[in-house]
């Protein structure tokens, strides 16, 4: 009698008293200025199912086994969590790993610390843990970011975004200015279109011969005018789209941007338009503005600060373009008469721009992935 009861007791203890519930992690985060801190509790059972932590295969997970694999666990978790300050990634690290008791068993409790490039206006959290293994997995978020927020991550909701509601005008302005600068410097299509316009500014083909520009000041002013026309047009469609007055069909706008790049490259080789380039720049500016409206709407407009945000964004775009112009035009001007500028910079550069524009156009307009270029 005694023996059977003891055997039953052992069996009972061995199966554990933890309750069955769907897989859930508990993510607590606190964003304070540029600093992040938090705690992320992930069920040991889930970590083991994903990583195979039970190294001696005895169906029991010990503290020793867990401690030795801390780096693996931390890497696995961090690769599946991203915190974004206005779309720029914040650095995140696991400072410590402890154990937390939950109603359905023990969890690894990861102490998180992080640093963002700037104090965010929009905080984005990307969560990708375990969805590939368990479609019913959920992440429960508890966030301190200008107040307390809750959130739920699921396979259909892998990103949550939070807006700082009490941001100052200056913060809004500086963030969108930065986003504008970033847009030019990181956006390939914007950069290529500008390059297409800048390359022939010091040397253009007319009536079958290359004609060098006469003076630097004139060249700079002409190019700056062109760039500004582009920005003004860009600002117009961007504002209309951001306010919600129209929503351009993404595919055709993207194809239009590709066509503008193609045209800018081709126009240097076989000039189709060499006068009134500013008006041409403005026409293409309208298309580019529509294209990035989507991205800016995605970033979100701050409540009550739309005008500031749009102004700042466009000023950022303009400043970045002028900076590129100032960096490129003067050296080109100096070397404009040398044959190598013509045959090693202008012609190959324009050819490259033309080709990239063509590939983009085919990919975007017909949805054919040529596998050569992204986007």
């Amino acid at each position, binding site marked *: 009698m*005694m023996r059977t*009861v003891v055997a*039953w*007791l052992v069996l*009972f*203890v*061995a*199966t*554990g*008293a*933890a*309750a*069955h*519930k*769907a*897989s*859930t992690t*508990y993510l*607590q985060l606190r964003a304070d200025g540029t600093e992040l801190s938090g*705690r992320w*509790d992930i069920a*040991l*059972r*889930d970590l*083991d*199912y994903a990583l195979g932590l*039970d190294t001696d295969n005895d*169906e*029991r*997970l*010990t*503290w*020793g086994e*867990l*401690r030795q694999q801390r780096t693996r666990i931390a890497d696995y978790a961090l690769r599946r969590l991203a915190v974004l300050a206005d779309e720029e990634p914040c650095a995140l690290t696991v400072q410590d790993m*402890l*154990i*937390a*008791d*939950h*109603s359905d*068993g*023990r*969890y690894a*409790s990861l102490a998180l610390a992080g640093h963002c490039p700037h104090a965010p206006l929009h905080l984005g959290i990307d969560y990708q843990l375990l*969805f*590939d*293994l*368990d*479609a*019913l*997995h*959920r992440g*429960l978020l508890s966030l301190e970011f200008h107040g307390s927020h*809750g959130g*739920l991550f699921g396979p259909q909701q892998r990103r949550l975004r939070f807006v700082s509601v009490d941001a100052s005008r200056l913060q809004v302005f500086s963030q969108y200015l930065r986003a504008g600068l970033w847009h030019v410097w990181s956006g390939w299509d914007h950069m290529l279109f500008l390059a297409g316009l800048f390359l022939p500014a010091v040397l253009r083909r007319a009536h079958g011969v290359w004609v060098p520009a006469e003076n630097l000041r004139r060249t700079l002013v002409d190019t700056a005018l062109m760039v500004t026309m582009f920005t003004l047009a860009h600002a117009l469609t961007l504002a209309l789209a951001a306010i919600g007055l129209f929503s351009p069909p993404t595919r055709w706008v993207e194809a239009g941007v590709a066509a503008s790049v193609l045209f800018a490259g081709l126009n240097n080789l076989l000039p189709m338009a060499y006068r009134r380039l500013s008006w041409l720049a403005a026409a293409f500016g309208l298309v580019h503005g529509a294209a990035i409206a989507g991205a800016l709407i995605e970033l979100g407009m701050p409540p009550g600060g739309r005008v500031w945000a749009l102004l700042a964004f466009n000023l950022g775009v303009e400043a970045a373009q002028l900076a590129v112009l100032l960096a490129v035009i003067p050296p080109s001007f100096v070397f404009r008469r040398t044959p190598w500028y013509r045959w090693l910079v202008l012609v190959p550069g324009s050819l490259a721009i033309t080709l990239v524009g063509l590939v983009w156009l085919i990919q975007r307009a017909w949805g054919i992935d040529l596998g050569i270029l992204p986007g």
Partner: protein
Amino acid sequence: MRRCVRWLVIGACLCAPAAGADAPYRPDNDGTVLEQLPAPRLAGAASLRELRDQWRSRPTHVPAALAYARAALEINRREEDPRYLGYAEAALAPWWLLPQAPPEVLLLRASLRLARMDHALAEQDLRALIDSPLPEGPAARMTRAVLRLGQGDPQAALADCQAARAMVSALVATTCLAAVRGLRGDAAGALDALDAALLRSADAPLAVELWARAVAAELAWRQGKTVPARQHFEQGLRRMAAAGSTDPGLLAAYADFLLAQHDTRRVQALLTPYPRQDTLLLRLTLAQRTLGQQGDAAALTAAQTHTRHLRLRFQEMRQRGDRSHLREQAMFELDVLGDPAAALRSMAQAWSTQREPVDALLYLRIARAAGKPEAAAAVHAWISATGLVDVRLEPELARVRTPGPLR
């Protein structure tokens, strides 16, 4: 000795109360066992992890995904552990949103969608399979029949039971028809037919016999015949134990029956081995509360611990948007928390997807406790539409009739 075990359970629950509320700690010894890892294996099959690894190496290979998903679903049936449902769904991810998936995938997907209460999508999958000449055809019919029985639509269930009749075993066909007849007011005739079929089908597969026993017990109880009801439940339990299996649905139904008979000791003995399953833990808590009120201090403490645990669990289910335990949530809010207003909200939601006589009874009780008998008008409409006769509902219905007719 038994009491020791119970204290052990209480101890284990006490140290794990809140969802992430308690402070994390560092174990002082490398040898400390932190978690018992389940290593489920189906009789005669590879372990779940082996099947998982085979699937992961070829994630779009239908047979590998199916083998893993089926094993996970089968283990969930035994354990009622939603993680296994999540594994199965992940295995079907490449086909999860495809309108046209292979038939085996469609059938599994329908089961998984039923489990997460996506009834409309599950119906779509079943409809696509129902006329198939493959074995999935009759299986889909039976699944839809069971779904419609659960939704309280015996008329629609009847069509599926009859259409599948020639292609399923006699016991399956009789159980299906008996469940339909029972809902339409002929529990006595249905039970006779089912008893006869059970006598002729001594070697029925486990799952089929347990379903038949549960239906038979319910039919008997509905007529107030508690002795045959108890016999059917007990026979089902014996078959379950002999197979070394667990059927949480049968256990929950039996516990409800025993609670109605005020046999709380039996409920406690029956359910104490299953503290991990919330549906069963809820019934255990109800029994232990009653025992506690009768002076059993240990039962009272256990009930309090379980109550804290269940409260957190239901709260988390709400946060997760999980609708699979709304009936239990309503029971918990009414009978444990004593919050009929909350229970009424949960029950109204539950009633939109499941309408069994036990739901009707619960809804009527909740509406009365909330002082809003008119809130259960849907139940009255359902009873008159189906023609259900159920002695358990009589006292509740009589209470409503006395002050003035509702209909």
